[in-house]
């Protein structure tokens, strides 16, 4: 790719980017939120037409006008957010839009299932081809996307933050797969904010900042701090410091909570926990062990089959999200697209989503757009949400900026209890630093924070106490400072219980 320029109204997402990709290499693309990584790859994949610049593929100049053409030329892309049809099964999603000789009358699903099983076995992407996609966790849906690209025989594989949603074990597996694919001569673009992964898997690294290439360097010549500095343009703290917690009264109490998942199977089996004002309780665990269900039950999006949730002394079990919000709970959802934001609404509208009907945003029955805009401008400035205008649709935000928008909105509600699920998913190093600081500041100002994260580093960095979840139960609780990583790892894998 030579001199790629892509403009959007008010922003230059790519300002003359040169990028080359060799067969057999893993090429990492690094950069801050909004640096233009996704845009560059969307240009390559035929989703956007560049305003200037050339794309060459195997010695030929190409200009894809649609992803279909790109796929035909051996490109595959796994997007930052998933492009799956929820009611369809895994296999149906994968063959969707594919032609087979027997179509349209009969696509041989059995053969597809068999092939997918072997493919997923081969790469360790454990997934049931017959499962409807809506029953899958975020992490599992990600695997489907990867499988889909592999199934279509991609020679060039673009992965936009594939690891953001995977468990550490899955990440290791994926990185191994990527190496194996590269070994077979495939070319891989790997976008990630996790410097460790990038250093571990890639051959070369290109760093973007403000739509321009800062540098392309071999991975051996790089280290974490140097990369962070190149991305951000200043020194970054990779781990924030925090003082000891000053826990007070219990704000969130969960007792003996049970619930079933979308398939009707038990997902929570008698979970009990307490979060006090001024402390952060971190829930560690491998994705899919009931964290999503716990999040949904507490926020009123899923019914508890038994047990209670109490917020600030009021019972919140099986009440509506509005009622629970009124008790003082704010929520940073793990699935920001399904729950957190309206992509076609403006950023300003998204920022007042729950508060829109209240004063001062509604007065005498009318929306006060001027006041909504002011509030949005205040919040985007305070939380560094980068956008040319708060009147732009939220879908124009880069992934990390969308996450910051949600964070801004939830904290603007001045919660008493904050449920933060995967709060830094998809954020760049400096944004993570910022969010971590913010969460700690919230804690210090007396908010009770329940942090659900599959990112063990994040749990360790933030939590005052750590609870480990495994198969719908809390299998251990320990103090955060000085916690034994090895022991937590064993508990996450289900092989050890601590006496509480």
């Amino acid at each position, binding site marked *: 790719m030579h001199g790629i320029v892509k403009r959007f109204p008010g922003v230059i997402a790519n300002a003359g980017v040169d990028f080359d990709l060799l067969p057999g290499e893993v090429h990492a693309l690094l950069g801050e939120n909004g640096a233009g990584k996704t845009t560059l790859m969307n240009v390559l994949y035929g989703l956007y037409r560049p305003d200037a610049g050339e794309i060459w593929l195997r010695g030929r100049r190409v200009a894809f006008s649609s992803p279909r053409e790109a796929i035909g030329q051996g490109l595959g892309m796994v997007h930052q957010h998933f492009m799956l049809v929820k009611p369809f099964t895994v296999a149906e999603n994968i063959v969707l839009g594919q032609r087979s000789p027997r179509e349209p009358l009969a696509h041989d699903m059995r053969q597809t299932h068999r092939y997918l099983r072997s493919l997923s076995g081969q790469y360790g992407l454990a997934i049931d081809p017959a499962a409807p996609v809506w029953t899958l966790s975020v992490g599992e849906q990600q695997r489907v996307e990867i499988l889909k690209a592999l199934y279509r025989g991609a020679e060039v594989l673009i992965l936009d933050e594939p690891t953001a949603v995977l468990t550490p074990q899955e990440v290791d597996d994926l990185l191994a797969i990527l190496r194996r694919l590269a070994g077979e001569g495939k070319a891989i673009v790997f976008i990630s904010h996790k410097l460790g992964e990038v250093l571990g898997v890639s051959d070369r690294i290109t760093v973007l900042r403000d739509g321009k290439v800062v540098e392309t360097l071999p991975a051996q010549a790089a280290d974490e701090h140097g990369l962070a500095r190149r991305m951000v343009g200043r020194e970054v703290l990779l781990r924030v410091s925090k003082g000891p917690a000053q826990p007070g009264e219990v704000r969130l109490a969960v007792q003996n909570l049970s619930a079933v998942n979308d398939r009707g199977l038990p997902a929570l089996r008698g979970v009990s926990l307490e979060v006090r004002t001024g402390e952060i309780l971190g829930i560690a665990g491998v994705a899919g062990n009931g964290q999503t269900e716990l999040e949904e039950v507490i*926020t009123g*999006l899923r019914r508890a089959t038994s047990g209670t949730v109490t917020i600030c002394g009021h019972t919140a079990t099986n009440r*509506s*999200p*509005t009622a629970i*919000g009124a008790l003082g709970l704010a*929520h940073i*959802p793990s699935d920001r697209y*399904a*729950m*957190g*934001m*309206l*992509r*076609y*609404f403006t950023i300003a*509208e998204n920022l007042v*989503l*729950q508060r*829109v*009907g209240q004063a001062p*945003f*509604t007065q005498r*029955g*009318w*929306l006060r*757009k001027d006041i909504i805009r002011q509030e949005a401008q205040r919040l985007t400035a305070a939380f560094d949400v980068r956008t040319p205008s708060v009147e732009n*649709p939220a879908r124009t935000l880069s992934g990390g900026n969308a996450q910051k928008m949600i964070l801004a909105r939830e904290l603007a509600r001045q919660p008493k209890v904050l449920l933060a699920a995967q709060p830094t998913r998809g954020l760049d190093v400096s944004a993570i630093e910022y969010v971590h600081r913010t969460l700690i500041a919230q804690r210090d100002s007396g908010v009770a924070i329940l942090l659900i994260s599959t990112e063990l580093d994040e749990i360790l960095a933030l939590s005052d106490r750590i609870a480990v979840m495994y198969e719908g139960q809390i299998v251990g609780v320990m103090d955060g400072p000085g916690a034994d990583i090895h022991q937590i790892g064993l508990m996450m894998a289900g092989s050890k219980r601590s006496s509480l």
Partner: protein
Amino acid sequence: MTQATIESLAHDARKPLPGWAAHIAAPVVGGLIGLGIGVFLIVIAGADPLAAYAVMFQGAFGGARQIQETILKTAPLLIMGLGLSVAFRARVWNIGGEGQYYMGALVGGAIGLAFPGWPSPLLIPAMLVGGAAGGLLWALIAGLMKVRRGVSEIISTLMLNYIAILFVQYMARGPLQEPGGYLPESAQLVAAARLPTFFGTRIHLGVLIALVLIPLVFALIWSTPLGFRLRAVGERASVARYAGIQVERMILFALAFSGALAGLAGIIEVSTLHTRLKGEISGGYGFSGILVALLGRMHPLGVTVAALFFAALTIGAQSMHVVYGLPDALANAIQAIVVLSVLAVDALAHRR
């Protein structure tokens, strides 16, 4: 129309427009292509296409009388289209405008027949409110079926159409039939039950109501928290629910509102044009209303243009039929082709 097509049309409609040029150019180009295809049909039917189109234009806009006719035809389409735009923005696919129109006509008409002695300032509002209520309640049946039992509103509103139309036909032939009359029609409404007209023309109160509704619906969609919530439900119900919006209530409102406006259109037409209840009082407004809403991109101004366009096409086609003796079916076919090509070009223009 399948749910998928409706949804994809509606999806396109929610995208911000790539600029005013595309906004206006696409429908114009689409319309021209449609008329171009129509040329072949007219030639096959053995007439001179240019002359036929001239007649068509003359018929819709050629003089004060013609313009009046077109405006009168626009009013019910506009009222229905505005109501449906609100529903469609919430992704509530009310296909039952026709039935709601009939039930509005029935309730409002029955009030007019029942109280012939009331003075006009009392009777007219009572009929209008009754008409709106009739449509509202009829749509609410589908709404309750949806929120209580999860029945698709597409199917229920469609089925309720048949029930409503047949019920009105029964009433016109049975309980409400003109005493001593032979035709399956009610007695004629008294003069006090007719909407007042203005400036010695046939332009009536219903046209005024339609005009007033344009800014009202605009304000509802864009300037009230209710409209905000409706749009949120339409964009993504899971997010709306997460944000504490009562999705079921919004669905009920969307059906009630569109039903009420459909019912209003029904009673307006009965009070002004038909002046009595009978089996055939609509001319398919319930269905054209859907196209008007979608063609107008569910935006009050777009809907206004679409309603006017649709009305002109209908009136113009009629005079082509009358003047040239071209078959009625041909005029209808041209009308349908034009609408299809506008929709097609519009959809193409709003890709990516």
